[in-house]
């Protein structure tokens, strides 16, 4: 049962990763007044497959003087942890099919959020080790930047989430989503973002951008300074793994944002029974796609920070802000 679910989720995720890439290219293209991919398939929809194929069949180049065990292990670590974290994410309500209750989730543990945080924190090693084992100063700088940046922003990330945790009183993502049921005045959903976690949400969003090394915080792979940062020396499938890991992480972050601040799969439910079973998943996916769009939008709009600005912002603005949010939430809840 779990195996099937895992396989399905994994397949969907990889597909989503592929089409997030497509989405990104399209959106950025349009932002920059271009068309983006158009040649492969209608609207370039087959482009991801072509890219995948290309990467797959490219020569796997291993430069000399790299530290081989870690050079090989690094992309694996990155992709494995990126894909694992999705296993805690619930996509929708339980559905009952022929007497079997099927939760739309691979595993449901009480401390789901904690485990996701733990897994993402382990994910740093992929980037850091890749940078170090490449035996290349650009890579090393990228790795250093990545580890410092991710450790720093992980604190803000964790603290920004605690506000939601206080309100829900649980680490279980399912409980958190359930706590956001209902409406204000009949039309505003009681999502956390509307019930006081506005600041928390933005802290989360910014910290998440830094965690996933996305623009405007993509210092570890800043091509203008570091060639390609930590994955300078990687090519073909190994590069693809980093690539996929990055987009998988984006999706995970989007899922988490949806679950924590936007009521998860909650949305208007209507129509016949089969539709009612599908609709939560639809709402969920829709919200995640919105987040992915924002990701891409930001990438197309904002310039890159300087490294010292990044660290100063993380420690001097974001951390105090998320702390303040946490304290305010705690006081509000206690009161």
């Amino acid at each position: 049962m779990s195996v099937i679910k895992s396989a399905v989720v994994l397949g969907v995720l990889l597909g989503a990763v592929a089409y997030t890439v497509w989405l990104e290219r399209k959106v950025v293209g349009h932002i920059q007044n271009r068309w983006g991919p158009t040649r492969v398939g209608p609207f370039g929809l087959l482009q991801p497959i072509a890219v995948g194929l290309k990467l797959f069949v490219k020569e796997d180049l291993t430069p000399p003087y790299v530290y081989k065990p870690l050079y090989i292990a690094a992309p694996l670590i990155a992709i494995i942890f990126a894909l694992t974290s999705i296993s805690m994410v619930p996509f929708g309500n339980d559905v009952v099919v022929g007497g079997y209750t099927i939760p739309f989730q691979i595993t449901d543990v009480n401390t789901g959020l904690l485990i996701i945080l733990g897994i993402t924190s382990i994910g740093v090693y992929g980037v850091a080790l890749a940078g170090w084992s490449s035996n290349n100063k650009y890579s090393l700088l990228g790795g250093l930047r990545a580890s410092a940046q991710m450790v720093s922003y992980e604190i803000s990330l964790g603290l920004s989430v605690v506000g939601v945790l206080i309100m829900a009183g649980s680490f279980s993502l399912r409980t958190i989503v359930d706590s956001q049921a209902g409406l204000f005045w009949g039309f505003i959903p009681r999502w956390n973002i509307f019930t006081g976690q506005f600041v928390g949400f933005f802290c989360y969003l910014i910290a998440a951008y830094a965690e996933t090394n996305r623009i405007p915080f993509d210092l570890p792979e800043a091509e203008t300074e570091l060639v390609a940062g930590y994955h300078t020396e990687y090519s073909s499938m190994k590069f693809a793994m980093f690539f996929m890991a990055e987009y998988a992480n984006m999706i995970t972050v989007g899922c988490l944002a949806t679950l924590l601040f936007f009521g998860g799969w909650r949305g208007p439910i209507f129509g016949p029974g089969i539709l009612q079973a599908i609709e939560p998943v639809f709402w969920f996916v829709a919200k995640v796609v919105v987040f992915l769009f924002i990701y891409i939008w930001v990438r197309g709009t904002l310039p890159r920070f300087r490294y010292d600005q990044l660290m100063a912002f993380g420690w001097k603005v974001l951390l105090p802000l998320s702390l303040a949010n946490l304290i305010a939430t705690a006081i509000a809840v206690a009161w």
Partner: protein
Amino acid sequence: MLSVHLVLFLVFGAVALAGAVNLLAQTHPINSALSLIAVMAALAGEYLLLGAEFVAAVQVIVYAGAIMVLFVFVIMLLNAGVEERTKGSRVAILFGIPGMLLGSLLVAWVLLRYSGTGEVAAGALPGAPKTIGPLLFHEFLLPFEITSILILIAIMGAVVLASKPPSSPVPPREGGF
């Protein structure tokens, strides 16, 4: 009889032990660091077995995710290489390894022989955040606050220690001793 609990315990224990030994055997610090991460992950598994899920999560997040990243970071920053061998190190190995084996065996023997018949069940004491929180913030409030002060001091100490020395050194006092 081999219960699932025992099997899992043995598996995680073996991983932890292998990691610990590998930590000693490796000459490059980054390998040692990764071995240590493996040990920590295995121990997190042991904690989960014992029901201490929150401890396990924190173990992963704090230990593996933060402290060890710091280690790796420093190793990368200082570009630490393979250990040098010196006369002292050989002597240390000569005495250290047998000493460790002897000590471990002694401890193991004593513990197995004399520690009574205490047993623990899987998930014997569920350490959920909800149960640990009140304990931490009521019964152990003072130690908790003290550790926060400790952390604060450590942060300041780390900043002072690692910050670059002033570019223009203080001129020597005139007419001093």
